[in-house]
């Protein structure tokens, strides 16, 4: 276990990264999230899990104020998301990207420097060098001049992680980053996310595959429209807790591992 993690365990006061109070979200009258409240401390790698249609992506989007909420309050580092926008990075689902877009790998990463540049200013040499550094970090600098569609799924996901790194945010939000991703890429990504956590950043990941959650995250949010449970991985990943969210969809964890 990492040193930062121990420090936290020993009760060093950590700031609250995200606090959500009584969050309600609906789509045209259909409730997607009901009365969700939790607080996440800084320096955690949190997985959001739950069955299909549980509102996992919706929660992520609501945290970022990308969709309107019916009720509730979301605070990022004690402030409203509007004040903190440039402090958070969002990695979208791969299926939401147009992979034929005329943009190269390095230019995609360079987009990560846009939020801090503001309007009117162009990225300079120093920004480009930083984008390259981020690309090196995820291990695909050699593909920098390729068009993004020419990369494999895992490499594409790494490009978007590099873009998030380029934003130098305090907080990372990733939506299903491991879907359609090869093993090497998955390992690279999770390693970087753990490094980020250990350096005190907060990382929130929407995830649907239960088999590796104990290796990946240290905290879990279990969701099925309502908040079923939130806490350390070991406490949440128990059959009796999971059963409350998944119902009869998955009888036990072993069965989950086989089926996914």
């Amino acid at each position, binding site marked *: 276990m990492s040193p930062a993690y121990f420090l936290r365990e020993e009760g060093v006061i950590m700031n609250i990264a995200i606090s959500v109070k009584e969050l309600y979200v609906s789509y045209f009258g259909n409730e997607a999230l009901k009365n969700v409240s939790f607080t996440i401390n800084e320096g955690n790698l949190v997985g959001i899990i739950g069955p299909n249609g549980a509102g996992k992506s919706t929660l992520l989007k609501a945290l*970022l104020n*990308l969709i309107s909420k019916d009720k509730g309050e979301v605070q990022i580092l004690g402030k409203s998301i*509007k004040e903190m*926008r*440039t402090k*958070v*990075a*969002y990695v*979208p689902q791969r299926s*939401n*990207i*147009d992979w034929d*877009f*005329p*943009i*190269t790998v390095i*230019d*995609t990463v360079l*987009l990560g420097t*846009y*939020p801090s*540049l503001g*309007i*009117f200013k*162009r990225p300079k040499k120093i920004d480009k060098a930083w984008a390259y550094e981020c690309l090196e970090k995820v291990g695909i600098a050699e593909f920098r001049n390729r*068009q993004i569609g020419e990369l494999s799924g895992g490499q594409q996901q790494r490009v978007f992680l590099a*873009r998030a790194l380029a*934003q130098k945010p305090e907080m990372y*939000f990733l939506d299903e980053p491991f879907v359609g991703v090869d093993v090497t890429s998955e390992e690279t990504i999770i390693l970087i996310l753990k490094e980020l956590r250990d350096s005190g950043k907060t990382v929130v990941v929407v995830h649907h595959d239960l088999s590796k959650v104990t290796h990946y995250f240290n905290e879990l949010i279990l969701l099925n429209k309502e908040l079923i449970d939130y806490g350390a991985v070991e406490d949440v990943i128990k059959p009796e807790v999971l059963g409350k969210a998944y119902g009869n969809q998955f009888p036990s964890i072993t069965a989950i591992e086989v089926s996914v």
Partner: protein
Amino acid sequence: MMNFIEGLLQYGFLQKALTTSIMVGIICGVIGCFIILRGMALMGDAISHAVLPGVALSYLLGINFFFGAVFTGILTALGIGFISQNSRIKNDVSIGIMFTAAFASGIILITFMKSSTDLYHILFGNVLAVRPSEMWSTLFIGILVLVCVYVFYKELLVSSFDPTMAAAYGLPTRLIHYFLMTLLTLVTVASLQTVGIILVVAMLITPASTAYLLTNRLWVMLYLSAGIGVLASILGLYFSYTYNLASGATIVLAATALFVLAFVFSPKQGLMWRAIKNFRKREMYSRIKLDRED
């Protein structure tokens, strides 16, 4: 060809026609890139048609038709957005409903204008009859559009490529959408004289698509698309002048011809190279098979 060049040196109307169509080629090419990358080709067609009632209204009220055109163009864009966001009607259908409605009201309004040749010119353009005032307004719109794209290039790029990220870091994506719709309306109005309302969508999407087949970088695509737009305009004007054909039609067909060239010969995307590559691969594998049989 000599005839065309002599004409250019001799006749003011031809010089004005050339200047105007070059400008239109550039701005349609540039705005067109964003239109096709955002998957809004149909929207481009819709806005260009929706300009008609605005133009007619402006004539009736005796004001510059930019105001009327922008007004009805944006109104239609808002109406399309409102319908698709607030019902189960899909976006393309909502576009179809709104723009035909706008176009139809335009036709009714035009009948109040006395001459029917006006309608014909608005619909199909007549670049050889461009007046100096119209040339200047095209130039003015052109510069405005290019400056806007230059200044907001970064924002246009990120909101076209990844609107969610753009929204996540606080860009007003909806505002950017309507900003682009405004530019699109301006470009349409500027193109009225050259290609007319009906064919302006071709100038928006054909050169941009040609450029799209040739490059993997947005800024290169913008320059290429503008260049192809200009080339199509000059070629089209040449054929129009030399063979006395409708200018809008010749310009559009010139653009189409350039697209077909790129479609067949583009180094990465072209039909020919794809066929050659497929052929080589199959050849290679069939040889491997033969080796094994030996």
